[in-house]
C-alpha cells in the first residue's frame, strides 16, 4: 500500500460554523510541520480498518456477487460473541471473541487463510469488568499485528500479546493496574502498533489514560492520563517528519496528538467530536467525525482549519477518504460522498439497515456491511451507485477485512471468506 504523502498546500479557510469558532479556535498548540505520512503496513490487513487504519485497499479487486452458498471460499463457526474485525497476517486470519455466562472467557483464534481450518485457539480469563451493552461485546476491539505478534485488547482491559503460533508473550491486565478503568457499555477502542509500540486508548469515566507499550515486552514506554469521559474511538497513526510517528486520540470533547515514542503531547484541540467513529487522514489533512466532518489541515505553523460539512455525517461507522473524495454512512443508512477539498457533496445513495461496521474502500468500490448481513458494493468512480447487494445470515457489526482479493465478513456466529474473483 502506498504511503500517504503531502502534495497539496493545506487550506486556510475558516470553518463556517460553531465547530470552527468554538472548537478550532481553542487549538491549544500547533503542529510544527505540514507533512503527514502514515506508517507502513506490517501485514495484509493487520489491524482495525487495515494497514494504516484508513479502511482503504485501492489495489485490491474483489468478487461482485456472493451468497451463503455461492462465491464463498469457506465459513468457520466461532466460539463466542464479538464485534471485532478479523485481521489477516501471513497465512492466518485472526479473530477474537468472548464466551460464558458472564462473557469472561476471552478467545483469540487463528484460522488458516486458505482453508478456514483452525490453526490454534487460545483462551484467557478476563481480569476486568465484562458487562457491556447487547449491541457491543467484550471482544469489540480489533486485534493488531506487526507481522510477528498479535496484540488483542478486550473490554475487560486485558491486553494480550501472542506470537503467530499462539504462544502468550506478555499480558497487561490494565483493569488490575487501574481498577477504575473500563465501562459497562463496553470498551470498543482497538489497539494500534506503531513503530514497535502498542498504543491503547482507555477512555471512560473512571481511570482514563493512553498507553504506549513495547510490543516485544509489554513494558510501558509511556502512560498519559486522559479526560474522564467515555469514547469508543480508536487511535489513528500519523507520521510527521520532524516529530516522527504520532498518534491521534479522539473523544467527544476533542483531539490529542501525541508522539508515539514518548507520549509527549504535540497538539490538542478542544471541540465537539464523535465518540465512536474514528478520524481518518489523507494528504496532510485530518477528517474528524464531529457534527458532520471537520477537516483539519496543517500548512506548517499555525495549523489551520480547512472546512466543515454537516452533510458529511457519520453515525457509528468511521469515514474513509481516497483520491479526492471522502465518504460517510450516516445514522439513516445513507452513504454520502463529498470532496476532500471543501466537503462539497458529490452524491449519495441510500443503503438499508443499520451500520455498526465501518465501510472500506476496495479499488473504486465501497464495501459496506449492515447489521442485518447485507453487504452493499457501491461504485464510487463516478456518481455513487449500488452495483451489488450480497446477503449472508447472521448479525454483522464487525468491519470487513480484505486481502488477496478476498473479503472476510464476521457475523455473531461465524467468519465468512468470500472467494477471490
Amino acid at each position, binding site marked *: 500500500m502506498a504511503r500517504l504523502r503531502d502534495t497539496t498546500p493545506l487550506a486556510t479557510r475558516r470553518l463556517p460554523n460553531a465547530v470552527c469558532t468554538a472548537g478550532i479556535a481553542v487549538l491549544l498548540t500547533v503542529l510544527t510541520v505540514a507533512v503527514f505520512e502514515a506508517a507502513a503496513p506490517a501485514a495484509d490487513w493487520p489491524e482495525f480498518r487495515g494497514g494504516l487504519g484508513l479502511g482503504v485497499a485501492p489495489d485490491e479487486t474483489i468478487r461482485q456477487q456472493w451468497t451463503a452458498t455461492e462465491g464463498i471460499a469457506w465459513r468457520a463457526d466461532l466460539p463466542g460473541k464479538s464485534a471485532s474485525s478479523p485481521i489477516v497476517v501471513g497465512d492466518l486470519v485472526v479473530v477474537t471473541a468472548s464466551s460464558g455466562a458472564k462473557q469472561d472467557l476471552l478467545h483469540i483464534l487463528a484460522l488458516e487463510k486458505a482453508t478456514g481450518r483452525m490453526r490454534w*485457539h487460545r483462551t484467557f480469563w478476563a*481480569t476486568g469488568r465484562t458487562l457491556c451493552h447487547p449491541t457491543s461485546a467484550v471482544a469489540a476491539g480489533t486485534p493488531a499485528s506487526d507481522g510477528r505478534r498479535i496484540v488483542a485488547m478486550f473490554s475487560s482491559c486485558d491486553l494480550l500479546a501472542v506470537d503467530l503460533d499462539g504462544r502468550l508473550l506478555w499480558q497487561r491486565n490494565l483493569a488490575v493496574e487501574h481498577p477504575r478503568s473500563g465501562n459497562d457499555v463496553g470498551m470498543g477502542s482497538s489497539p494500534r502498533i506503531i513503530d514497535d509500540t502498542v498504543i491503547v486508548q482507555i477512555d471512560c469515566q473512571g481511570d482514563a489514560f493512553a498507553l504506549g507499550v513495547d510490543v516485544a515486552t509489554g513494558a*510501558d514506554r509511556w502512560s498519559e492520563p486522559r479526560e474522564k469521559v467515555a469514547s469508543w474511538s480508536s487511535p489513528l497513526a500519523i507520521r510527521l517528519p520532524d516529530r516522527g510517528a504520532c498518534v491521534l486520540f479522539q473523544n467527544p470533547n476533542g483531539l490529542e496528538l501525541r508522539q508515539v515514542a514518548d507520549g509527549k503531547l504535540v497538539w490538542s484541540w478542544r471541540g465537539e467530536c464523535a465518540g465512536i467513529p474514528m478520524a481518518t487522514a489523507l494528504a496532510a489533512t485530518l477528517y474528524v467525525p464531529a457534527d458532520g466532518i471537520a477537516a483539519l489541515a496543517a500548512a506548517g505553523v499555525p495549523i489551520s482549519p480547512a472546512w466543515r460539512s454537516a452533510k458529511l455525517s457519520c453515525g457509528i461507522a468511521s469515514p474513509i477518504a481516497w483520491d479526492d473524495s471522502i465518504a460517510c454512512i450516516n445514522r439513516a443508512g445513507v452513504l454520502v460522498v463529498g470532496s476532500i477539498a471543501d466537503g462539497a457533496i458529490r452524491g449519495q445513495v441510500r443503503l438499508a439497515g443499520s451500520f455498526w461496521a465501518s465501510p472500506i474502500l476496495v479499488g473504486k468500490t465501497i464495501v459496506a456491511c449492515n447489521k442485518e448481513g447485507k453487504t452493499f458494493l457501491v461504485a464510487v468512480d463516478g456518481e455513487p451507485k449500488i452495483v451489488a447487494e450480497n446477503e449472508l445470515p447472521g448479525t454483522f457489526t464487525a468491519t470487513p477485512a480484505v486481502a488477496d482479493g478476498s473479503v472476510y465478513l464476521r457475523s455473531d456466529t461465524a467468519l465468512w471468506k468470500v472467494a477471490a474473483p
Partner: protein
Amino acid sequence: MIMCTKMPVVVWLAAVTACVAQAVGPNGAAETPPQSVAQAMAIATELAGATGLTGQAELSAQADCVAAMQAAWIVPSLAAFGNATPAGANWLRSGLERAADRLGDALPAAELTAFVADVAQPPRARSLAFAWLKARAPLQADALLAAMLDDPSLDLRREAVEKLLESAAGDGAGAQAGTAAEKEIYRRGLAAARDVDQLEQIAGWLTDHGEPTDIAVVLGFVRNWRVSAAFDNAKGVGFARAYPAEIEHAATPVPEGWKAVASTDKHGTIDLNAAIATEKGVLAYAVAAVEMPRGGLAEVRVGSPCAVAVWVNGKRVMTHEIYHASEAIDQYVATADFRAGNNVVLVKCCQNEQTEAWASDWKFQLRICDPLGKPLATQMPATQK
C-alpha cells in the same frame, strides 16, 4: 514467588531455575520440558503466582515448559490455580491449554474425571478440566453433572442446571408439559441456579405453569426502603460531599421524615424519579434495615445507571462515580461485614445533569448475597419500627 507447599524448597528452586535456564533459548522458545512431576508442579505454581509487569519473557518461557509437560503431569498441575493471581491464572492456562491441545486424547480422562469431581480443587481449574473432558469424553463429562447442582464452581453449576432442565424438557414436552414431575425438576433448578438468566428462565416457566414465582424474591432484592429528600448534586459536587443525612443516618434504620418506598419492580428497583420527583443534578439517600442469618462477610450487589455509594452499619463499602454508562443486576459488588440479626444499609444515589432522554433514569437496586450469589438478607419492612 509462590512455592508449592507440599514440595521441598530445594526441589522447587531447582525446578524453576532449571526450567528458566533451559527454556529461554536465543528466540525465547522452550527447549526442554520438565523432567519430573515435581518440576512440573513447581513451574505451574511459579507461573500461577506471577505478578508485576517485569519478567514476562521468563514467564512466557515457563509457559513453554508447561506446554511441553507429559500427559500424566497435567492434572496434578491444575491444583496450582488455587493460589493464582489474575495474571498468573492466564499464564498457567496458556501453557496448560497448549499442552492439552498437543496431547489430544492422550490427556487421561480418568484423572480429569476425578479432578472435576473433587470439589476441594480450585473452581476455575475444575471448570477448565471439565471443558477438556467434555471435548474428549462427553459421556463421562455428562455423567458428572447430576452431582453438580450444588457445586462451588458457578460454571459447573450452570451446566448442571442446564442439564437438569433439559431432562425436564425431555420428560414433559407437548401434552406432558407442566406435569408434577416436570415442576419438581424446575423447583430443583430454581434452588440450585445462581445465574440471573437461568433463574429468570426457571421462574418464568414455573409462573407460566401455575406456580407464580416472584423473581424479585428469588433474587433477594432489598425492596423496602426509606428515602430522603433531594440534595444538591449540580456539576456532580454532591457525590463527594457528606451531607448531614449521610453522617447521621448511615447506621440509623428509620430516619424521621424519610419517605417509605417499597419496590414492586421485578428487579427490586427503587425509582427515585417516582419516589421524589424527576430532577436533574440532585442526589438522594435511601436506608433499609436488613436481617442477616449470621454474622460475617457477605456481598453487597448493586445495579444503577447513576453514581452510587453504599454504607453498611455506618461503614462505607462502595463508591462508583459513573453516570449513565449502562446498568445491570449485580453491576457493582463489594464485600461488607454484617452482624447476625439487624443491619443498616444506606445508599447514596446521584443523578447528573445530562439532558438526553436515556439519561433520565435515577434509580438503584440492591441485594446481599454469598459469594456464589445466593441471597442472604431478609427484611423487616423499613416502614415498620
